[in-house]
């Protein structure tokens, strides 16, 4: 007999919700901080609503209109240039050991599995 766990109920609830329409939580809160880090050093922190371009040795990080993207990567695959950083989803350029994260007190997510 399986043990009833909270997770079961949460997932069942989520599946029901998904049958009614996909849960799409675009997490781009207004009061958030963008943090750019490279191999042990914080290169930039700033408000997500303040447009800014951060140039690193291998990448360009662009903050514009509340969107945070990597717009240049000198690595072969350029995978980090897909998508945008949100409070639940960091952008990472592994070859350059660069991470771009959005930190927000509005978002209560403790982690994301992907």
């Amino acid at each position: 007999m399986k043990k009833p766990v909270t997770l079961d109920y949460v997932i069942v609830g989520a599946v029901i919700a998904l049958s009614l329409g996909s849960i799409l939580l675009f997490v781009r809160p207004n009061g958030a901080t963008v943090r750019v880090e490279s191999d042990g050093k914080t290169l930039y922190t700033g408000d997500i609503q303040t447009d800014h371009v951060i140039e690193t040795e291998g990448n360009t990080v662009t903050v514009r209109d509340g969107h945070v993207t990597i717009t240049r990567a000198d690595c072969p695959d350029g995978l980090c240039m897909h998508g945008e950083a949100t409070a639940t989803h960091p952008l990472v350029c592994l070859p350059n050991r660069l991470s771009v994260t959005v930190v927000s007190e509005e978002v209560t997510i403790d982690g994301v599995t992907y």
Partner: protein
Amino acid sequence: MLLLVPMGCKRREPSVQTGFYMDTLCRFTAYGDEADALLPLCHQKMAELDARLDHRQETSTLYTLNHSNGAWTTLDPDAYAVLALACVLAEETGGAFDPTIGAVLSAWDDFSGKVVPVDAECEAAASLVSYRLVELDETSRSARLAAGQSVAVGAIAKGYAADALAELYRDHGCTGTIDLGGNIVTVGTKPGGTAFLIGVQDPFHGSSLLTTVSLTDRCAVTSGAYQRNFTQDGVTYHHIFDPTTGKPAKSDLASVTVFADNAARADALSTAMFVLGSDRGGALAKTLSGISVLFVLQDGSVTEVSA
């Protein structure tokens, strides 16, 4: 190593540090009086396990094993533990997850994106994959492979490492989360007793969450074709290989998330479930105790199976 939030005694805010290990971004978030002492140990542990469990590093005993031409090879304690556990999980999954996938990875140049082997090369590599041919001797902590075989434990190493870090958290009386490139382990609860809220990424919209779950002392590991892939001559190849074909698995899944008490198990099972697909993976999930599995199919539908 980055210290993002200083930690003081009795503070309810966590200490958070990040680092790059095992080819991924790792984030350690700890609550507790000893969090400041704990997090440097997490970096130390990750660096150690990264070196020990990477078969590509010449200093690792797994590298030695892969180049031993079928001779018995003494492994370090972590490499032995991972390989032994991997063989158990390979048996549990009917070989859908198999640590002797090394020859296949070699044929694909460790998924560098530069090499797409022809069918005959894939078949030849796949013929060498069989955990059943691995011999283990616990007393001498040694292993022996069949001729031509090689092991690669990347599909379980992050889970194993996350479990090791969780043990460190508990040893230091800390709670928190361990995030090794999306492999999540929750240790205890937040201050005040609330569970950790973990999101599951929508495989079709990278910036979105499919759902959220509350976890306490549980792990969540996801495998998906969207995570690592490359395109050559108009064909996109993803990084989760079918041991029987030596090629990226032809799965009806966009992603699969496994929830379990043990991250190494969740890690290996998520790979196996992806390879098996929703029908066979779902059937397997029903036979395994203590896990819940969230299948997201290519057509966008979602099913959940709890053992």
